[in-house]
């Protein structure tokens, strides 16, 4: 079993019949993901991609035994869709939707507390276990099965790093996108714990960026719990102007916190190998994995 998902995980898709969902779920199925159906309110009873469509998550779960969900629902209904899955005891969710209002995520985060559901996202590219399965929108071409676990706040940077790691002839155990939004589901610390416990992972790469406090929390966690495996990090935005919004809603400095230099300093102090340049992440992984 890889972390979070495997080729046996039964997956439904919320917002299944939309164009994006259709495109990506077709590719997920081709990749080996066990997609068992979809949920679209008002379209229950129909079929899509040769799979059943249900009105509610509870019905889909009951009929298919699904334990995971991919959320492709538009921003205005995304939070309600996630909460519906939490209420239906779905164990693992990926929310791909971008531009979810932050206060909706505050409500979602509250509902996740004490539930048995884990969420990655929103604004997440999802999770991929190379050669086995994927839930989300990440492209599949340069990844290789292997022993490096990747956890990232940015989709395109993850592709860049997978290319660099594969060029070093190293493969990946799994890559997880936690999303770039200010309030999101699983964070770096949650994913570090999973990778540390995973016998298939020998080295972990953490791809951070300015804003928020996920990197600082990872550093504090690693300072208190020495890593059993090498951890490599790159934090984007060392030269970004402060006080400006740079793409993600999550990358705004408030009160001077969350700048790249501070994050890098904290991670380095916690024993993390820092890739000095974004062009050298693969090389840093190679060196750390060897050490």
């Amino acid at each position, binding site marked *: 079993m890889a972390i979070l998902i495997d080729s046996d995980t039964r997956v439904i898709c919320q917002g299944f019949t939309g164009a*994006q969902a259709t495109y*990506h779920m077709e590719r997920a199925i081709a990749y080996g993901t066990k997609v068992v159906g979809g949920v679209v309110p008002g379209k229950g009873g129909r079929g899509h991609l040769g799979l059943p469509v249900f009105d509610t998550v509870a019905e889909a779960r009951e009929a298919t035994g699904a334990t995971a969900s991919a959320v492709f629902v538009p*921003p*205005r209904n995304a939070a309600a869709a996630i909460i519906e899955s939490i209420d239906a005891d779905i164990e693992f969710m990926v929310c791909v939707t*971008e*531009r*979810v*209002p*932050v*206060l*909706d*995520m*505050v*409500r979602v*985060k*509250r509902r996740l507390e004490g539930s048995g559901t884990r969420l990655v996202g929103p604004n997440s*590219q999802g999770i991929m276990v190379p050669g086995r399965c994927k839930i*989300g*929108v*990440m*492209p599949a*071409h340069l990844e290789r099965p292997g022993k490096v676990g990747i956890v*990232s706040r*940015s*989709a*395109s*940077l*993850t*592709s*860049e790093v997978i*290319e660099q790691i594969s060029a070093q002839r190293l493969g990946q155990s799994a890559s997880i996108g936690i999303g*770039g939004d*200010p*309030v999101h589901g699983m964070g770096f610390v949650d994913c570090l714990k999973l990778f540390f416990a995973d016998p298939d992972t020998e080295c972990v790469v953490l791809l951070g*960026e*300015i804003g*928020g*406090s*996920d990197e600082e*929390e990872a550093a504090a966690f690693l300072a208190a719990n020495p890593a059993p495996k090498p951890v490599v990090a790159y934090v*984007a*935005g*060392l*030269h*970004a*102007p402060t*006080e*400006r*919004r*740079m*793409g*993600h*809603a999550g*990358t705004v400095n*408030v*009160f*001077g916190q969350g700048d790249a230099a501070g994050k890098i300093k904290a991670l380095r102090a916690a024993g993390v190998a820092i890739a000095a*340049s*974004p*062009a050298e992440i693969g090389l840093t992984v190679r060196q750390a994995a060897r050490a």
Partner: protein
Amino acid sequence: MNLHEYQAKDLLRRHGVKSPAGQLARSSDEAAEAARKLGGTRWAVKAQIHAGLRQDAGGVQFCDTPEAVAAAAAKLLGSRLVTPQTGAKGKLVRSVYVEQAVAYERELYLAALVNRSAGRVALIAAREGGNDIEARLAAAPEQMLSLVIDPETGVTEAEAGRLAGELGLAGAAAEQAVGVMRALDKAFTTFDASLIEINPLAVTAAGDLLALDVKMVLDDNAQFRHADLAALRDEDEIDPAELEAQRYNLNYVHLEGNIGVMVNGAGLALATVDLLKEQGGEPADFMDVRPEATRAQITHGFKLLLRNPAVTAILVNIYGGGILRCDTVAEGIAAACKEAGLNVPLIVRAAGTNGELARKILMSQGIPVTFAQTLAQAAAKVVEAGGRKAA
């Protein structure tokens, strides 16, 4: 979406947060008229721009007669105000807010924001407000009081009462503070704010609490449920190129350098800018193409780079992914070059989905492009082509 001070105060008043009586003016006559109508013996004339730290820059003037109010307004209106938050060129003052000046005994700091590590809204407070609050709290974080709010209950009477006590308030002032804190939380949620900062929150001798200055930012992602607030958007305050980029769904931030940059994804864009700077280059912008961008949107975005007179070379770094394919970007760029003309070196790194097709498209359309295989090569080539920053 950033709001002006007068707009933010209006929104907070709807929830019961008091501020001095004030009126917006767009001419010196209007300003004098506002002072007379508001009454009193002393007024503040405040430049309405989307930037803080106005007072030390001369953007807030205190006047004792309506004539002096008119003179202060005449001086501010049409001038460019430079504060540490505006950049060197400053911001054009198009309106002033004329407000009754009030006497008070204490200045507090109170803000509501999203505490990301908690994933909740939090109130941040300090016993002393003022312009240097961020630096002071950074230096002495123990002075920062915080109340993390449970979204299912909102700020409770008891929590607010405790925070008021920590602020050193008692009696009528403490009672009002509880009301202000709960109102601030309510306003934050009602308007889908991402920041509301009251600085200072004045305490008068009678124990009244008045918001003397308010900064408010609304969550752009929630605008779909606030059609009534759309009119508060002041497009004059937004950089014209950034405004145009917003229309085409591109994240664009204007920077001061000479290398035009187009990248897909914020993380990769930040990394690309970092690498350029490390190699001695100066980015002219930060442009993040969203995954679902269309060919036409990319054409508009690329034209923004072509139109920037400071640009001496352009770098396009696209990692084609699950949604955005490199060929879509190539077609968009080719169309922009045909319509607007390409007069500077263009370096393209197209990796991932349909990267090879993108290279073919650009070559077959006769666009003079230098291709790069890796991020490092792309950065080196564009810095070489565009020149390093002046020493």
